[in-house]
Structure formats: structure tokens, C-alpha cells
């Protein structure tokens, strides 16, 4: 959910920076989007296209890095990706926030990002 309002935020930030840099065109925008956010990537792309239509970012390329969920375990020292419970009977894939090694709760260290990493502009 909220792909459109996040895309609005992205476009506003990008155009703001482009203006600051006196750009004539925005060519590319690179984003980090965590797997644990609720953003549908295709919807973000679609919203971005609509929102940049009459701007200098029209037709700019949107490069999206999908960041997998990672966690750290204070009990056993595990530091790695989250595991998933695969409930085959219902084709439901459920992420678990417990340590895959010892079962204790993890501190989530990655996967919740929503960051504009970089923009490429032409002056």
C-alpha cells in the first residue's frame, strides 16, 4: 500500500535535488526498497511514471534494489537473512522473525529500507 504516496515523496525529493543542482534532465534514480516494507515494486514504477510525466524526470530510468530481510540474534550470534515458513498446503510463504539457528527472536537489521540512493542528472 501507499505506493502512490511514496512515489510522490520520491519524485518531490528528486525534483528538489535536481533543481538545486540546476539540472535540465533527470536520467536515472536509484532506490533501495526493503522486502519487509509493503511496497509493490510494479506499482511504485507505475506511479513514478505517472508522476514524472510533465517534469524533467520524464522517461528517467528507475533502478530499484530489493533488499532482503536480515536479522541478528543476541542469543547465538546468528547474523543473516530471515527464514521463511513454507506452508505447502496453502501456498502461503510466511517470513519468520525468529533466529533460524536457535529460534530466539531476532533484531531486524535490514529489509525495511525506503531510500533514494542516487540520482543521475544532466546539466
Amino acid at each position: 500500500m501507499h505506493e502512490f504516496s511514496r512515489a510522490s515523496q520520491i519524485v518531490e525529493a528528486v525534483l528538489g535535488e535536481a533543481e538545486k543542482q540546476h539540472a535540465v534532465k533527470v536520467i536515472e534514480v536509484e532506490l533501495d526498497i526493503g522486502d519487509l516494507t509493503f511496497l509493490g515494486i510494479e506499482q511504485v514504477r507505475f506511479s513514478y511514471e505517472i508522476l514524472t510525466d510533465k517534469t524533467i524526470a520524464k522517461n528517467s530510468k528507475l533502478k530499484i534494489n530489493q533488499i532482503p530481510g536480515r536479522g541478528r540474534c543476541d542469543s547465538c550470534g546468528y547474523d543473516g537473512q530471515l527464514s521463511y515458513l513454507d506452508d505447502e498446503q496453502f501456498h502461503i510463504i510466511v517470513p519468520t522473525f525468529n533466529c533460524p539457528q536457535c529460534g530466539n527472536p531476532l533484531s531486524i537489521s535490514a529489509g525495511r529500507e525506503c531510500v533514494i540512493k542516487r540520482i543521475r542528472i544532466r546539466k
Partner: protein
Amino acid sequence: MTQIVQSEPGEIFDIELDENLKRANDLIAEENRKQLQKHGIRAIDVMGSVGAGKTSLIEQLVRLLKPRYRIAAFKGDLTSKIDYERIESLGIQAVQINTGRECHLDANLVKKALLKLDLTALDLLFIENVGNLICPADFPLGSDKRIVVISVTEGPYMVVKHPFIFADADVAVINKIDLARPMDVDTDKLAGDVRNINARTSVVLTNCRTGEGVKQVAAALGIDSAS
């Protein structure tokens, strides 16, 4: 800024931004947290599905804890004041937050609502979010603890279908347990589903119409209810 050599006219530059889009809400949530801590107020998010029993749970918790604590409640809803009036009639400070069409509360709305309370005369604050198991998870408000309420009348798959909201939940409440048999829902399985997702979450079974289980909810939140 890195300059890139290109053959087309005009100079092309890469600009490293590292702009975190969640930062705005996270900063205000931190502000809210500090404000509440400054006044020694424990704030509890109450999230959950539509009709799960969030307001009923708050009503029961207020009845249980009012003799010992000074309590206030925020009620987040799209447009109506139906639930707000239920809470207000309990005789506590209550603030209605109408989100319009927004499907979740955010830290800014809570910040504005805090201005309407007398923070010097409060021990506990319940923040009831809009009925929604998806969006509130992404918008921290600045509270100490988070409760997620679901009920047996939603069927057996509510937990596995909404794993992310349980990632930050301190307490999961499974309500309407008196209807588990007619619904043919296994509450042990639901509780197990929660624990498989997050071992840190305490699970409490309740009937918020009769008050069954509410003392255990208070205990799970670390609130002493003995009078």
C-alpha cells in the same frame, strides 16, 4: 558528485543522496516518545483488524486499571466518532483523530493529539489505530508497547496472512474465544502461528465482552493491575 564522461551534449553527474523516506515519520515518532517519557507516561499502540475488538479491549483495560492509573486514549478512525464516544463515556481524557481517508495513524497525527492532553496528569495512554493489519506496521508512533488484536470470527489464517504486523508486536490478543467452537477455529494453532513468526510476542486469549483474559493482557504489557 561524480562526473561521468558522455558523448551526448551536456554534462552528466551522479549525486549520492541516501535520502531515507521514512525518516520524517521516524523523527516525529522519536519526538513523541521523548515527550511521553519526560512525563512518565506509558503509551500503548492498539492495532488490529476491523471489528476484532480493539475498542472493547481498551474499554475493559480502562475499567480494570482506572482505579490505579490516570488514563487517556486516542481513537484513530476515518471519519466517525462512534468508538470515541464509547471511550469518552468511561470518564477518561479522550481525543478523536480523524484520518480522513488515510488507512493508518502516523506520528504527526499523534503529535498533534498529544497537544490536546494534559500530560502532567497522566500515567497511561492507549492509542487505538485504524482497523488495518497491514499499514500501521510501517508507521511507528512513539509508543512503548504494541498490541495486535485479531478475533476468531476472522477465520484461522489471519496470522499467517499478516506476518509483518506481528514482527513488532509485544502482545497478540486473540479475541472472541467464546465463538471459537461455532467458528471451528483452533486458538492454539493461531497462538502457535504467532510464536512461529515472532517468539517475543506474548499471546493472550480474551473475551472482551465478559472481560476474560484482560488481566493477562495488562500483565503481558507489564502493567500491574492489582488494586
